[in-house]
């Protein structure tokens, strides 16, 4: 059994390092034909001179190739700006298309083989590593053994290394997709399977990797918490929503010539829902498009209050949401790293609600522009001052680079806790109008601290449990792990009558004094 695990680990590491290595395993040569095909004629007139030295030259690294291309274009743009020829500045992003067309060598020639070596072998390796735990880890139950002795789980060198890699990955993904063309090409076989003839984009790569992480680590989560049916069903739910609804369905819709649409995403997490291009795409796509638009609005306007009332925000955050899904699966090994201090809670409240306010203002601005056709609201350009900074700071940096990159450093719910505007909105409903709460069991709490330690949202669960007070917190995503790790059966996620939800804390067992904490 142990031998199987180690073999699996070796296979996985092989795939992992092969994947990293693939970054370097292509060469790039821009041909005259590709240049002519991709770059518009009016731009070629301006660029020909600068591209002369690039065309036909062989590059061994995507970074230098892309930098040369962008440098060549930027040089022209700089000249145009100096000459104040604003209409001739080139805004087209040619780098990705040119890089893809110019990539040749190992990855282009052996895409399928390499895909198998990375993802199929990687999956087999991970499964060999993960599945035997069902036997080796002993009978079902909480086995958090050694977590705080481990270099991965406790901000040791492995954690820091993985955090660094994730941060670099997200920066490349969001801002320098042309650099990672090798990885994008690698998932072409999957893209072709769903949409023959289509080429993968960086977002397809991201969606695929996301599903890979959620499924593989989801299986790990299921095995780890296999004594808890709540955890098993919940994990299956996030795996399903990620793979079927967030990844496959939109791709299938595209194949059916319908708009790309993720039915489980919603505003304000889906911050471009009200962007003009998005509204136009949906409303001009016929009946289904209109339905999608109506669905998206209904989901946050009606779905959120109704479902949160009955089940708490967990119906979304830890059962459906993609960010939540990743946090509960790939992020599970890091849940204990969230900051539980009062200070952190204070910062959290300002930040997450601040982002919600920002999202609302941004959306109002965008809609104002959409409806009136005027770009400026109170004298400010809605794109430059609202939509663009939101997309950059919140959409990319916060939710991606920090949200996931910081898993091994600050826990798996950094984004959900400090940044997600949808979580803030769901949380406000949960705090004030919901049947959901975590109840504490009479006087049974022994203040051990497992609940607080393993709360990914940084809630000091013990604070409530040891004084016999219901836990009604805006941030609670209802993952149920506090209840799972409690050694004395104190905590339980319950949907009950609203009455008594905010009841005074009472500890049972002492008849001398009615203990009101």
């Amino acid at each position, binding site marked *: 059994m142990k031998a199987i695990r180690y073999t699996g680990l070796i296979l996985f590491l092989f795939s992992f390092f092969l994947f990293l290595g693939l970054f370097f395993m292509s060469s790039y040569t821009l041909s005259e034909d590709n240049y002519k095909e991709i770059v518009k004629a009016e731009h070629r007139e301006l660029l020909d001179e600068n591209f002369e030295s690039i065309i036909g030259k062989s590059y061994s690294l995507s970074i230098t190739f892309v930098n040369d291309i962008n440098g060549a274009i930027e040089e022209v743009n700089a000249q145009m700006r100096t000459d104040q020829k604003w209409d001739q500045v080139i805004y087209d992003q040619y780098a990705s298309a040119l890089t893809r067309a110019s990539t040749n060598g190992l990855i282009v020639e052996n895409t399928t083989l390499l895909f198998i070596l990375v993802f199929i072998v990687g999956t087999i390796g991970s499964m060999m590593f993960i599945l035997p735990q069902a036997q080796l880890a*002993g*009978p*079902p*139950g*909480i086995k*958090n*053994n*050694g*977590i*705080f*002795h*481990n270099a991965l789980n406790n901000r040791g060198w492995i954690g820091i290394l993985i955090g660094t890699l994730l941060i670099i990955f997200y920066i490349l993904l969001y801002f320098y997709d042309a650099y990672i063309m090798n990885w994008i090409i690698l998932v072409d076989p999957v893209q072709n399977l769903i949409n023959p003839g289509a080429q993968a984009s960086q977002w397809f790569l991201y969606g695929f990797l996301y599903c890979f992480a959620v499924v593989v680590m989801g299986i790990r989560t299921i095995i780890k918490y296999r*004594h*808890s*049916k*709540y955890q098993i*069903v919940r994990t299956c739910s996030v795996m399903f929503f990620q793979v079927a609804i967030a990844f496959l369905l939109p791709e299938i819709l595209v194949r059916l010539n319908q708009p790309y649409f993720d039915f489980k995403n919603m505003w304000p997490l889906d911050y471009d829902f009200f962007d003009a291009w998005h509204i136009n795409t949906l409303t001009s796509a016929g009946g289904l498009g209109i339905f999608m638009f109506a669905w998206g609005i209904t989901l946050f306007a009606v779905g959120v209050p109704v479902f949160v009332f*009955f089940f708490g925000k967990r119906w979304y955050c830890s059962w459906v949401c993609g960010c939540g899904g990743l946090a509960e699966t790939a992020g599970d090994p890091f849940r204990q790293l969230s900051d539980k*201090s*009062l200070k952190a809670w204070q910062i959290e409240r300002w930040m997450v609600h601040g982002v919600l306010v920002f999202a609302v203002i941004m959306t109002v601005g965008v809609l104002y522009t959409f409806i009136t056709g005027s770009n400026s609201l109170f004298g400010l350009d809605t794109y430059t001052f609202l939509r663009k900074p939101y997309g950059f700071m919140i959409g990319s940096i916060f939710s991606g680079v920090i949200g996931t990159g910081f898993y091994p450093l600050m826990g798996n719910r950094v984004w959900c806790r400090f940044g997600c505007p949808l979580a803030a909105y769901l949380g406000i409903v949960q705090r004030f109008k919901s*049947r959901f709460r975590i109840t504490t*069991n*009479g*006087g*049974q709490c*022994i*203040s*051990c*601290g*497992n609940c*607080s*330690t393993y709360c990914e949202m940084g809630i000091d669960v*013990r*604070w409530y449990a*040891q004084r016999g007070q219901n836990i009604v917190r805006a941030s609670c995503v209802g993952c*149920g792990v506090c*209840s*799972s*790790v409690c*050694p*004395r*059966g104190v905590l*339980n*996620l*319950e*949907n*009950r009558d609203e009455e008594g939800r905010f009841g005074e804390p009472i*500890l*049972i*067992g*002492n*008849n*001398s*004094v009615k*203990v009101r904490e």
Partner: protein
Amino acid sequence: MQHIVILGNGVAGVTAARHIRKLSDAKITIISGESEHFFSRTALMYIYMGHMTYQHTKPYEDWFWEKNKINLKKAWVNKVDFDKKMLLTESGTEINYDQLILATGSQSNKFGWPGQDLKGVQGLYSLQDLALMEASTKEVTQAVIVGGGLIGVEMAEMLHSRDIPVTYLIREKHFWNNVLPEEESSLIDRHLTENHIDLRAETELEEIIDDGAGRVKGVKTKDGEIIDCQFVGLTVGVHPNVTLFKNSKLNLDRGILVDENLQTNIPDVYAIGDCAQLKNPPPHRRDIEAVWYVGRMMGETVARTVIGKPTKYEPGVWFNSAKFFDIEYQTYGNVPVNLLNDQKAFYWECEDGKKCIKVVYNNADQTVIGINTFGIRQRHEIWNKWLSDKKTLSYVIEHLDIANFDPELFKRYEPEIQRLYNEQFPNKVSITKPSFFQRILN
């Protein structure tokens, strides 16, 4: 301003301090030599197992004490002068008090075995014990634990988490059989075996063997068997930590004797928690109850007396809980090891052999007096009410589903339990069958 000094910063002392602070502005000082801050003693095992760090076991953040004007003094106290109302610390500092609350906790028992003070032999009670265990088990390839109680099984789990094989000597026929009835303790026996604990029932320790360098190299049982090991956990219970008060004016028996107001024989001196011994315990309770909850409740109670509102300590229905590896245990009311003449028990055990409930009742009027539950969480509030209201067995079985505290989606065993009841008893109860929607909407 009054100065209230609390000796001991465990749950009893700290709860007392917190409640005094809620009720008065008196100056409060907590003295402890063990740790600067209050930590959860019950969580010591999780530090060793790597589930948590020491920091995580502190129920209150470090700023809490200053904010609530509770002075913390880290010092060992060498002497208490009750006449001068003064404590003397190891470093020679004198601390005067107006009122003194003794919450000194317990000490591990040692029964005079040869070799019991060798290196690698220890109990587990304090933070210092934990540090010692951490150091002593570094190179250990075999450990022996002596004593089938809660700390023993915790130690077994701790060592098991580090892949150290454990031989577990217990005096009784089954694990914790002096507290748990045979069916329940057998259930735990099986679970320990499943976790590769080498359980030796009815085996007593004769001596601990020296390796010649002052370290343990094995143990010898009363049957003459020698078990090689490099670590011995002595977990044969605890006794009140009252060494400091021997030969003082304080009335002691096994613990510090206190009246119903938790007051000792000396005015302005109280004792709470593990170290206190009730002179007149209520009929359903023991005189010394060294458990977390009792410490907490005594702390809550003594706080009122100390601030001038004399309050009797009146513990309600007994309850307790524990976890044996993966099996959770809760108990409410009274479940004796051997039933008295007029008592009977209803016992259900799950097919998997890992969950059971035992409900004990008076045969004459069928009133329920206690429950043991393993692997199924029960609602304290409901059981407290049922036992106080003296509900009958059939009532309890019929309504068992409302007492269930298991997480959502867990398999519910009430129908199975009710069917078993109906097989065994003439007065049938109806079987609980909530619909799916009732389930999810509650």
